[in-house]
């Protein structure tokens, strides 16, 4: 147990703003609302915050430092996520090491954005040099086009069917039905999924996330602070990040998780069989399949068979994205990398409400992001554990 680099650091709060299809709120307000919700859950106040790990696509030209000025936070630790949907977990791990090393006692980890479809597409055409110069001029269809390529290749290489991805999406919609904060809560059948409007074949509407407005936050604290709060404690048992893996191989159908996993499980002293749930980064179902494989939950190239054999609803054999995930709760830009962390912490605290997973002692959260020339560049993951 002593091997985790995050010993003596606890997640003491988790909060989420209301998710909205559109809103005239500025991102600063959404960030504040997420921070406030997290601090309430931790029984802390903004004056207790000594550090901020923040991810928000729409923040520039402002940044994490100007947000401190705006909010009046004197900070001894700052992190700004540049790794898209992998950022939130990476920021949390960096913050935990800063607390462990005594640089701060309380760090707020926040992700938030205020997107609609037009703003999302406009951002992706100029997301980075490779996308702007070598994808956008072809009318590539944004992230939908990129992940349609991976989905098609996964299906043809491993024999997966649309129904396999559909099972996952339908299960997440069922989970969202138990989450008052999710935007898409009307029940969805497999037929609804299979016959939805074509976006980028083989992807149809319900393979794609809905851009929206919202924010998520978790609060980390040192043991000294955490023990006096009187809130349920969650520890970071292990974790890691991996970027640009495998280098120079866009269509490997692999990701950084297979490099993160061995060390993460060793730190945590557990394996994939010891997990009560997984909160995966679900920008597209094919990436959940690749995460299941990279994290050792399903055999390589067989996630679709694993999905046929498992019920992934909150009360199923292996619950995935128990709050509905981005596919059903909505993707509030960078918040897509934090929504699963917040859901994981709520589950471990026993605050899952109607969707509470039984015996949720330990679970995994994963992040993914920063699409560049044909794939996401960054992967992250962490094992979270309830402290009894």
């Amino acid at each position, binding site marked *: 147990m002593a091997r985790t680099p995050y010993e003596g650091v606890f997640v003491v709060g988790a909060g989420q703003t209301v998710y909205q299809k559109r809103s005239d709120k500025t991102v600063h307000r959404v960030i504040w609302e997420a921070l406030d919700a997290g601090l309430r859950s931790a029984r802390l106040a903004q004056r207790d915050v000594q550090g901020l790990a923040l991810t928000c696509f729409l923040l520039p030209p402002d940044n994490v430092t100007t947000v401190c000025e705006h909010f009046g936070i004197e900070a001894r630790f700052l992190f700004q996520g540049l790794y898209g949907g992998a950022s939130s977990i990476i920021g949390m791990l960096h913050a935990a090491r800063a607390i462990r090393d005594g640089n701060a006692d309380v760090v707020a980890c926040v992700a938030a954005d205020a997107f609609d479809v037009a703003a999302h597409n406009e951002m992706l055409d100029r997301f980075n040099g490779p996308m702007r110069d070598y*994808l*956008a*001029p072809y009318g590539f269809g944004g992230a939908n086009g990129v992940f349609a390529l991976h989905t098609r290749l996964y299906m043809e290489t491993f024999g997966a069917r649309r129904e396999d991805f559909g099972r996952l999406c339908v299960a997440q919609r069922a989970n969202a039905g138990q989450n008052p904060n999710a935007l898409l809560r009307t029940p969805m059948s497999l037929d609804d999924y299979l016959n939805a409007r074509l976006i980028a074949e083989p992807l149809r509407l319900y393979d794609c996330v809905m851009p929206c407005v919202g924010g998520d936050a978790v609060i980390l604290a040192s043991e000294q602070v955490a023990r006096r709060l009187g809130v349920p404690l969650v520890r970071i048992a292990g974790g890691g990040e991996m970027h640009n893996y495998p280098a120079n191989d866009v269509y490997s159908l692999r990701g950084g998780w297979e490099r993160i996993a061995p060390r993460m499980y060793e730190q945590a002293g557990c394996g994939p069989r010891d997990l009560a749930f997984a909160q995966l980064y679900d920008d597209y179902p094919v990436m959940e399949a690749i995460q299941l494989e990279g994290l050792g939950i399903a055999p390589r190239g067989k996630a679709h068979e694993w999905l046929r054999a498992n019920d992934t609803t909150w009360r199923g054999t292996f619950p995935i994205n128990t709050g509905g995930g981005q596919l059903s709760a909505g993707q509030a830009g960078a918040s897509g990398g934090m929504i699963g962390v917040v859901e994981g912490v709520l589950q471990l605290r026993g605050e899952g409400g109607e969707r509470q997973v039984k015996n949720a002692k330990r679970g995994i959260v994963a992040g993914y992001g920063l699409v560049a020339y044909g794939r996401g560049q960054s992967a992250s993951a962490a094992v979270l554990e309830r402290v009894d």
Partner: protein
Amino acid sequence: MTEKPTPRITAINKPFWDGCNQGRLMLQRCAAPECRKHVFYPRVCCPHCGHGALDWVEASGRGRILTYTEIHRPGHDAFLGEVPFLFIAVGLDEDPTIHSRLAGPAADNAGLIGRPVKVVFHQSTERQKLPFFALAG
């Protein structure tokens, strides 16, 4: 009618985009004798060995389709009049992966993975041709 997005031409990528306008598919090739790998997209150093000198060479223009999608909802309104079209990833014979479009109508698109293709140049905007690929053989 909104205008199509265009690449930003820099000192690094100018030979590639000029080549397209001249009907030649140009690739970088690492100058290190022990490496000599081909590179796309244009870089300041070799992403295989880190060497800082890259030569420009004309590629064969041949490759195979790695994967494909039929786009129905483009990310940019300027392409709305062209849907559906096939967006593809091509593994060039020289090795690098390039994203492009399949030239011609998106009729029967089953079983495209692995099919050989050859580059053709498509006048995308007034100033810039783009490399598209057509089925070969």
